[in-house]
């Protein structure tokens, strides 16, 4: 019966996700079609004469392509590096030959498979299914919230059997989600492209060109069945992992943090480990790889297992089975062995006694705190917000790379010039440039003369070679001269056009400060703020003190401001640390100087319409960024007045969804990303206007104010 305990809200949420993903599916098809029409770069598959011809060619050439593979395997056996006895390569050749021999008799059929191709191309569905699975897992961890754990644990069916029934319930729900989502999309695709699903079920799967390297003989119908079973298994594992984490860690923030960390690790593993890395087994067994597209079925790959070639899918199935067995075992052990209450018997162990003392001190601590400090304690100690801050700061510190990069010679010249002549253009700096220009000009003339001398035979070959090599090696000076002349010309134009006395400023550091977008750092900061603020008011709901607090005037008004003040200060603190690290790193690596120069001295900031120094402008820019963050803080805090902590987190993450999709490679979402707004410098430079940026910030400010007022009304209304 556990599967019926999933709340109505969760079911509504799942239905919503299904419709959202269906909308995305159709939307992505339209976008693809539009892009292919406008840019012609990304071909949009359509069943027309050209496609029919290509499909026909593929079907006719399929048998030959398999024969070619077998012949290649045989001929490669004669190459020494592939023919080493008992080596992986030799085993791979033999296995590949055997595998493809089994599909020699397959006769693909040419049919309108466009709907199937679009169906398999839509990879977002995996993401939506994964989100659905996490929601199901969330709904299965509720015994603590309802205060039922002690009662359940003491009953005979409330331990291992309960865990098993929860897992079965998850499996049932995951099956429903997978069937609804994947079959739903297949039907949508068939309707959209007028595909005949039933008519093609008996054709070999190799009839769809995506599966040309699929080395097993089976029909499309049979493949789809296996495909769905595989997806159900995968969905169950996602739910299982999410459930286990939340079940073992009794803290929503930390659980979600750990789940996020696992997702990030899987993504990084997929990105970092190449398909031919010595540890590529990890890549192929990574759940991200299995979720990201259908390459698990379309890509033929054998992995090295002690110099034997083993198909990657064997590893995948084995690892998935192992993960599920281990997770179920851990879940059962935790369910059976973890007691809801700790023993009160006297503890003879001195370490445990010491820990117990500390625990007692921590428990008694809140009684001695002021209201403000108590709120601080609630956020950072009770809700483990301190871990979020420590992780964030740790991440920033880990990202610090103070190693001075090796500069090219022209960069050395540039840095030297700026060290000597930073400031307004003066005679000395212009003399340096004109001297260098003259020297290079003389050198060019000398080249002309000497080459004539050499042509006439008056210069020996070694003299000419030596001189010529020296001439070429002045390339760095030429690059530097071009760069500094451009900057000099720009400053002259600035003076003439805008009457601004620009400075020579080293632009390398500022280029990194203004134009580089630290997407991952910003994302981590936003996540941290969401996690910290999500429980600000919701925690009172959870502990049942909300009504008592709101019953008193101090609890309504004073506490509202104290709570907000604390999270805003926390945001400022995190922002401050991040900013200091960022500026110090750039200063150390690239050098930042010329803070007093007019901001227009930097070419990429020439559009700034008012007079101020570079330092002031940097200050304003960071202030604007802080403002955006404070608005986000207020927004998330206000949501927590209405919703529970988990729901607040998920509601807030909707803000980050486009950013996340953009970061993991789904192009098109970057424009709607909060990171774009967070990265004010790059955004402003991209837009080339300060007013558009101010408008965006204004909108965000308005959202912040509205959410503050709404939250105030909700909290302070008796």
């Amino acid at each position, binding site marked *: 019966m556990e599967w019926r305990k999933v709340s109505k809200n969760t079911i509504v949420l799942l239905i919503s996700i299904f419709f959202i993903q269906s909308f995305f599916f159709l939307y992505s098809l339209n976008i693809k079609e539009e892009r292919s029409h406008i840019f012609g770069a990304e071909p949009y598959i359509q069943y027309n004469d050209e496609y029919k011809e290509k499909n026909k060619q593929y079907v006719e050439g399929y048998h030959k392509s398999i024969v070619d593979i077998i012949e290649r395997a045989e001929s490669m056996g004669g190459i020494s590096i592939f023919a080493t006895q008992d080596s992986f390569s030799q085993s*791979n050749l033999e296995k590949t030959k055997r595998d493809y021999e089994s599909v020699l008799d397959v006769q693909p059929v040419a049919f309108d498979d466009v709907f199937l191709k679009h169906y398999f191309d839509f990879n977002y569905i995996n993401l939506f299914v994964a989100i659905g699975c996490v929601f199901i897992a969330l709904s299965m961890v509720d015994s603590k919230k309802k205060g039922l754990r002690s009662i359940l644990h003491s009953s005979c069916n409330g331990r291992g059997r309960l865990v098993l029934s929860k897992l079965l319930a998850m499996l049932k729900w995951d099956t429903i989600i997978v069937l609804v989502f994947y079959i739903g999309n297949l039907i949508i695709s068939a309707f959209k492209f007028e595909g005949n699903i039933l008519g093609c079920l008996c054709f070999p799967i190799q009839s769809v060109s995506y599966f040309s390297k699929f080395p097993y003989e089976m029909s499309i119908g049979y493949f789809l069945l296996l495909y769905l079973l595989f997806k159900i298994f995968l969905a169950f594992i996602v739910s299982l992992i999410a459930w286990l984490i939340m079940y073992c860690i009794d803290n929503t923030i930390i659980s979600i943090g750990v789940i996020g960390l696992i997702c990030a690790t899987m993504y990084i593993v997929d990105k970092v480990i190449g398909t031919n*890395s010595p540890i590529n087994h990890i890549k192929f067994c990574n759940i991200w790889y299995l979720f990201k597209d259908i390459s698990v079925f379309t890509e033929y790959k054998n992995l090295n297992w002690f110099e034997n070639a083993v198909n990657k899918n064997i590893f995948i199935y084995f690892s998935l089975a192992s993960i599920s067995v281990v997770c179920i075992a851990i879940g059962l052990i935790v369910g059976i062995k973890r007691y809801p209450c700790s023993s009160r018997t006297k503890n003879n162990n001195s370490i445990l006694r010491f820990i117990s003392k500390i625990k007692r001190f921590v428990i008694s601590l809140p009684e001695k705190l002021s209201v403000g400090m108590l709120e601080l304690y609630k956020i950072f100690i009770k809700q483990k917000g301190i871990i979020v801050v420590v992780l964030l700061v740790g991440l920033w510190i880990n990202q610090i790379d103070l190693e001075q990069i090796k500069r090219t010679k022209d960069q050395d010249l540039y840095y030297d010039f700026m060290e000597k002549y930073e400031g307004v253009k003066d005679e000395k700096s212009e003399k340096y440039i004109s001297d260098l220009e003259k020297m290079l000009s003389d050198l060019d003339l000398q080249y002309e003369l000497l080459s004539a001398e050499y042509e006439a035979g008056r210069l020996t070959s070694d003299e000419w070679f*030596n001189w010529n*090599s020296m001439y070429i090696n002045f390339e760095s000076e030429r*690059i530097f001269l071009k*760069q500094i002349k*451009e900057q000099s010309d*720009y400053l002259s134009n600035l003076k003439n056009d805008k009457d601004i006395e620009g400075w020579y400023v080293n632009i390398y550091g500022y*280029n990194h400060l203004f134009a580089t977008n630290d997407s991952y750092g910003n994302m981590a900061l936003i996540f941290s703020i969401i996690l910290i603020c999500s429980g600000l008011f919701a925690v009172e709901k959870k502990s049942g003190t909300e009504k008592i607090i709101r019953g008193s005037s101090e609890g309504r008004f004073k506490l509202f401001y104290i709570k907000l003040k604390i999270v805003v200060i926390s945001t400022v603190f995190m922002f401050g640390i991040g900013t200091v690290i960022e500026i110090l790193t750039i200063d150390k690596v690239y050098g930042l100087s010329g803070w007093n120069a007019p901001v227009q001295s930097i*070419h990429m900031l020439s559009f700034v319409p008012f007079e101020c120094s570079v330092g002031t402008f940097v200050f304003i820019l960071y202030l604007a960024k802080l403002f955006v963050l404070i608005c986000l803080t207020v927004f998330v805090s206000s949501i927590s007045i209405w919703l529970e902590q988990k729901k607040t987190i998920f509601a807030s993450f909707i803000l980050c969804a486009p950013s996340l999709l953009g970061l993991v490679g789904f192009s098109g979402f970057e424009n709607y990303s909060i990171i774009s707004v967070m990265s004010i410098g790059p955004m402003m430079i991209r837009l080339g206007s300060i007013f558009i940026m101010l408008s965006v910030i204004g909108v965000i400010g308005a959202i912040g104010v509205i959410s503050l007022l709404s939250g105030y009304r909700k909290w302070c209304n008796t």
Partner: protein
Amino acid sequence: MSLSLYKYIGSVIYKERKRAMRKRLVLGLLGVSLLLSACSKSDGKKDRTEEQIGQTFDTVSETDLGNYKEELLDLSKYDIENDESDETIDGIIWNQMAISDKGYYYWVMSGQYDFLYFMDKATGKSVPLCNRPDCEHIDENCNAYYKTVIHSSADGVEFDRNRVLFCDGFVYILGHDFDGEHYLYRISEDGSKQEQYMRLYKKELTQTGSEGQSMTYATPEICIHKGYVYFIIPRETVPTIYRMQLGSENVEKVFELKTERPNLYRMLPYGDFIFFQAGIFSEDYLDVDGGIFAYNVTNGEIKLVKSEAISAYKVVDNSLYYAKSDGVYRFAMDGTLDERIVEYEEYPIFSADEKYIYIEGDNNIIIYDINGDYILTPQLSDNLEIIDTYFGDSKYIFAKGYETVGTDKKSYRVYIDVSQIENGKVLWQKIN
């Protein structure tokens, strides 16, 4: 600067293309780093180089080349012939190809993709370095394909298609990312495993100008020998030979040339030594004063082996063959001999093995015996033109050739079979 002057220089450079190639070899421009006294850096700035690497240095440096006196280097006592060296001593120049006991590794540019290829010594067959029979070697899914364009993305790697090395059963190639991190990549000899093996150094690749950023990349000089990778970072203000143990993170400084107008280039591993050339340009840049040095990898000693030798060189059987402006000289390292053995009108680009000396001539190579007697010039088919010689080992000599068919020119790797020289008839053949 007037445009016409550049045009003129361009035309001169075009005319001098062949000579410029020779010049590249003569002075090792890839390793050259020059300083103008007007633009030289202060000591404080120079010290920054050590901070830049930020790692341990075992400094064996010398600022004054004049301190070095020519010393005899008797290689016979090192028992090089029986040295179970971890690499094949080859005659390939600038690491354009790599030689293993089973065959040769080299880059092939094919349309928009670059592939690593392998030529089998046993069969003479050439195949992409991909062990998958199901691969058609036409796109980025091929094991032999190495991504080369990173300028539009921040997470890619560009591989240096001019360098390939082989050592101890592994192929090594160089690559760098957008941030200027330079890495050594290791590939198993059958191409089935590839990994980013070790980080070498970081060097800024982007050039910031008012029009935005542009890329600058120069190929480092590199060799791998007895478990260490040796490299010279291009365009360094103080040219330096660094070394790192394979797989380690520690950088050691082997030799640095702290001087005005420095020139450090052409490393050549042989037995217990890394030979290299170091020199100083004269003030008018019309002459260079330099020689061939030998760094003993076992005790860290550096000796000047031959002064006034600034061009191509080769060590064979305890003898140093080196090029001067009038031909190839042989210098016996026990001090008994230093004589011209091949007369040539200018600095020759050459290689040598136990039997022959190969000199790059106009559109072909000229083969002499080890005593300098002319043997033959390999035959060329009518439409084939040799444009760049890589040399090779005692089995094959390689080159890059252009075949003209109608108005189209197509480039090929070509080779000659050294064993055919004794028969008196050698033909350039395309690698199949």
